[in-house]
């Protein structure tokens, strides 16, 4: 059994806004073992990206990690000095951002931006770094690498930019890759190619991966373990097979039902009625209760905790609590 590489415990990240405190990540815990791929899925706006950014300690200025622990190879990242964190970033933890267009600096060429971490962490010469950058570009299926390195971000298509972001994240062979929707802008053939690539890397270097995606197909292909989030909280988690076969939480069930499947050709897609709560004024209750088909009185009064229901599978739902806990 591989060792745990990353252990997140009770992570709490809040944003201070005019309208109040946004509890974007609210007591989130999970772990990633070496060589394991953990997927986070969940409602858009539920705090997936912020969770990832909290790990890198790159949350926007008006936000703050206010509690919890992030243990990475035995060190609590929250205790590290700025310098040590910097050394980890890009080198041991690579991150792929969700919006590639705004995430690349418009005034530097692709090449200039790619060689930076290579030079910084792998200490290669500029020439070698360029060579490596071009290799990466080719590896990610973008033709004409020598020309691409001289282009500016706005001259590439969305998919190309996303692959550039992936290339940057992979460039220093990190131990952990955090990928925030890495393949949304890619066509399926390229996506398949990239997923293969990620898998190869994972196998070869025993790299762990935190994958955030909406595409349940991708989850099914890539994940070893899945964490489902809703409104800043983990509502269910479990090994991928279990979870797809046997979703427990009503939200997870809804998610799986909502996905259009090739060849099905339904008239309407299944949707979960209602809307996500405002993360500013959350009350003591199950946050999903208002949209839940099985909502009970208790759901509106007390928050369920994440408990193990089946082997390795946990859910936070009153449906599965024993009577005495109520």
């Amino acid at each position: 059994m591989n060792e745990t590489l990353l252990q997140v415990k009770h992570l709490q990240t809040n944003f201070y806004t005019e309208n109040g405190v946004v509890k974007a990540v609210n007591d989130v815990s999970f772990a990633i073992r070496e060589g394991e791929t953990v997927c986070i899925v969940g409602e858009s706006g539920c705090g997936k990206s912020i969770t990832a950014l909290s790990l890198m300690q790159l949350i926007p200025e008006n936000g703050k990690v206010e509690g919890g622990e992030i243990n990475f190879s035995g060190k609590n990242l929250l205790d590290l000095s700025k310098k040590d964190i910097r050394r980890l970033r890009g080198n041991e933890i690579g991150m792929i951002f969700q919006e590639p267009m705004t995430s690349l600096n418009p005034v530097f060429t692709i090449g200039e931006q790619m060689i930076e971490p290579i030079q910084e962490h792998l200490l290669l010469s500029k020439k070698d770094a360029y060579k490596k950058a071009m290799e990466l570009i080719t590896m990610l299926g973008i033709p004409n690498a020598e020309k691409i390195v001289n282009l500016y971000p706005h001259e590439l298509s969305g998919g190309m930019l996303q692959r550039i972001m992936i290339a940057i994240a992979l460039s220093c062979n990190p131990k952990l890759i955090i990928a925030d929707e890495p393949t949304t802008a890619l066509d399926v053939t390229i996506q398949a190619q990239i997923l293969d690539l990620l898998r190869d890397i994972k196998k070869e270097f025993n790299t762990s991966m935190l994958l955030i995606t909406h595409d349940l197909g991708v989850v099914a292909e890539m994940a070893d373990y899945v964490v489902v989030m809703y409104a800043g909280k983990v509502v269910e988690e479990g090994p991928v097979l279990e979870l797809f076969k046997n979703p427990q939480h009503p939200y997870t069930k809804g998610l799986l039902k909502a996905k259009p499947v090739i060849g099905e050709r339904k008239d309407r897609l299944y949707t979960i009625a209602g809307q996500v709560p405002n993360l500013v004024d959350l009350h003591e209750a199950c946050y999903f209760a208002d949209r839940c088909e099985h909502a009970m009185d208790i759901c509106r009064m007390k928050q369920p905790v994440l408990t193990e229901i089946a082997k390795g599978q946990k859910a936070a739902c009153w449906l599965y609590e024993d009577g005495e806990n109520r």
Partner: protein
Amino acid sequence: MSEALLEVQNLKKYYSASKGMFKKFGDSVKAVDGVSFTIEKGEVFGLVGESGSGKSTIGKTILRLHEKTDGDVMFKGKDVFSLSRKELRQLRVQTQLVFQDPFSSLNPRLRVGDAIGEAMVEHGLVSKREVRERVLEVMDKCGLSPFHIDRYPHEFSGGQRQRIVIARAMALNPEFIVMDEPVAALDVSIQAQIINLFSDLQRENGLSYLFISHDLSVVEHLCTKIAIMYLGNIVELAPKEELFDHPLHPYTKALLSAIPIPDPTAKRERIILTGDIPSPINPPSGCKFRTRCPMATDLCAEKAPDYREAGAGHFVACHYV
């Protein structure tokens, strides 16, 4: 028989590729290299293809955000590129575009409510007093909550921004929308909600779409006609059922085989594309796909295949079908 809403004929769009402004190198990027299609009223036209094959470029060019290089675009029988300023302004109400990248297409200094509402007021669709109500309505349809209205774009998650952009386009009640990856950033439940909204609008208001997406399951669900693009050209175009049931072009086949299935236990056979990935700056001779095509022959290198009708309404560009 439904009328043609949008007619695109042999559209070309080349970007001149240059580094900075001093050194010119290479030729132009042939982002769109002769594309023709027709979208009828009430139709959802899917555009699928390789990343970088020119989908977004088509979307922007037919709405005259870029100047074309060649070809014709007719909207409701009028040439889009020869519209007067006034006519163009009318076109802007009738047509909309949802950008691929939602964040950068939102003005960082504009509150979301204003971003959605301003065009409505500008075009006199609602009065200033009513606008807020109308905005809330649209937001609700697109899965946004009322409390979002006074926030600024950077305070949203990727998916929420996507919904803002969709709401902004919907607010004008257009007849035709270009959707550039509108649902890629959305989680499936919201995605379902939005897609349902799209089909409702299509059904009830006769709204037409050019729907650009990588997610073939969504495309299959929503679109009536689908075009597959490869490197600036449409390689196959057919009604939905026809395309999914009888794909002809080898690229289409590869594409369909690569769709990830949301079932971890599923076994699948993927057509792996190997070979050099060509660049739009100097595409390969003959058939552009030949470098990666499992069935390429010498003929493919010599001659570009004709774009022809292989069945009823089923067009394809390949020598071997």
